[in-house]
């Protein structure tokens, strides 16, 4: 992945955020990224704090259970560590921008952003008239977004990247298909037969995936349905520790830069991570695909 790329680090909103990828990009010192997502909880704030980010394209940046993202505020209010450009969208309009990018529409006309000053702060969105009615009927035209790379966390995948996802998915499908490349972070690698047993649970088929990595708990501290609970204390801790730039430096050193990889991160979490592991069973009723 080159410097300057536009990347999607999680498009499901507050679950299945690929923090393992966020950390690895920080370790590799990628530059000038455009972070594209409706909401990626503190992933975006971390990226901004390390100076990786030139632009943010999205609807909300912060710490969902904590409120503000301190790095986001420092960057947008005082240009610290450096100024960033914010491209404002609402959740539905960024969804339509991904939808257009995914399915080959140059733009999508929406009603839901009319009246909002987001039309002023994001000049990419144009006002127009609906040509299908005679009376005035304003619409906002939202152009297609086509990020370079989407990272996504899935509950299980086979080695070819055929993946099963369940639970709410936000804009995962649209953002991934809109992206030039897709990198899958699988909580579990399973035999191809497991995925093929339920092709309707596939959100992204393997032939559209460029790489698949087996990374348990890649979404920590965000939850992964049926696998890992949300680590609320971790989010709170991040919020407390990163109030000042020095605090963020310490935090990112301890939790990202000083660790070689996600194995080490899991080891460092230790028993705290084990407590987040879902042990219970609440299985879906089977669907039969037999043909005879």
């Amino acid at each position: 992945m080159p410097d300057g790329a536009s990347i999607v680090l999680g498009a499901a909103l507050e679950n299945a955020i690929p923090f393992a990828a966020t950390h690895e990009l920080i370790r590799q010192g990628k530059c000038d990224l455009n972070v594209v997502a409706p909401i990626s909880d503190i992933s975006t704030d971390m990226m901004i704090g390390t100076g990786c980010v030139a632009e943010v394209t999205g609807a909300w940046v912060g710490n969902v259970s904590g409120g503000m993202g301190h790095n986001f505020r420092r960057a947008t209010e005082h240009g610290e560590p450096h100024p960033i450009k914010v491209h404002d969208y609402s959740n539905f309009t960024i969804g339509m921008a991904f939808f257009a990018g995914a399915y080959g529409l140059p733009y999508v006309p929406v009603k839901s952003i009319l009246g909002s000053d987001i039309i002023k702060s994001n000049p990419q969105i144009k006002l127009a008239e609906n040509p299908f009615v005679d009376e005035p009927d304003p619409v906002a035209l939202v152009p297609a977004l086509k990020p370079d790379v989407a990272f996504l966390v899935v509950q299980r995948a086979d080695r070819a990247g055929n993946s099963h996802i369940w639970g709410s998915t936000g804009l995962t499908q649209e953002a991934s298909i809109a992206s030039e490349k897709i990198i899958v972070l699988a909580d579990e690698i399973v035999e191809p037969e497991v995925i093929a047993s339920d092709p309707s649970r596939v959100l992204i088929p393997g032939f559209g995936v460029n790489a698949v990595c087996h990374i348990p708990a890649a979404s920590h501290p965000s939850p992964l349905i049926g696998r890992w609970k949300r680590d609320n204390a971790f989010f709170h801790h991040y919020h407390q520790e990163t109030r000042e730039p020095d605090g963020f430096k310490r935090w990112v050193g301890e939790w990202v830069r000083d660790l070689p990889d996600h194995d080490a991160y899991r080891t460092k979490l230790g028993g705290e991570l084990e407590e987040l592991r879902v042990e219970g069973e609440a299985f879906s009723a089977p669907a039969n695909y037999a043909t005879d």
Partner: protein
Amino acid sequence: MHEYSTQELMIIAAARQINDGERIFVGMRLPITAYGVARLTHAPNAVGLFESGVARYEPAEDMLYTMCDGPNQLGAAWTTGLIQIMGLLSGGRVHAGFIGGAEIDRFANINTSYIGDFENPTTKLPGSGGAPDIAAMAERLIVIINHQKHRLVEKVDFITSPGYLTGGDARKKAGLPGGGPSVVITDRAILRPHGPENELHLASVHPGHTVEEVIENTSWELKSTPDLGETPAPTKDELDALHRIDKEGFWRS
């Protein structure tokens, strides 16, 4: 009389805004608790919608920190994508949505984006999420905000989520399909748009608060609706329902 906190009063006032059988964009924190109270009291057939891609009948059994947490998905009516859920906003399929904000103005426009000039803000707020879409499209909007002078302002610095814009029929002229804010619930009072200008008026004052105090804490010259009264205190049934949901007493203090 039963004892209750201001937060509990706000939750119950919010719950009363939900009618039975309605589909509601719930959001997190106070509104999701209000939804639970409504389901347990007068609105057992309401449906809760979450923009991440979740629809539920019964509220989640465990505490939620985000709408994507496991307990909000287990036993849901539908776990799907954002477009499927937010798309329901079109065609009058969503009756009401809850939103909060950092600032609201006399025409009920809401700011969650920028304090100051957006090109050079003094304070950058987290942003819109799906609030503009809900504000534009839901049949009506229920706003919850703390009642402080710097929050209830003459004119917001940035309209993240449109209310009645410059008032009167400006909202309609801008092409917005949804009906706009129907009520603003604060920690001191309830405000409603009133009259042809759709300006926010004081509709009721919470028990223990005064009209003067409310006016003092509002930046514009706040007028009252003709039927101005006191916000009805929570009933025993309402408080019982709230305590069943709020087991840990999170909202009691």
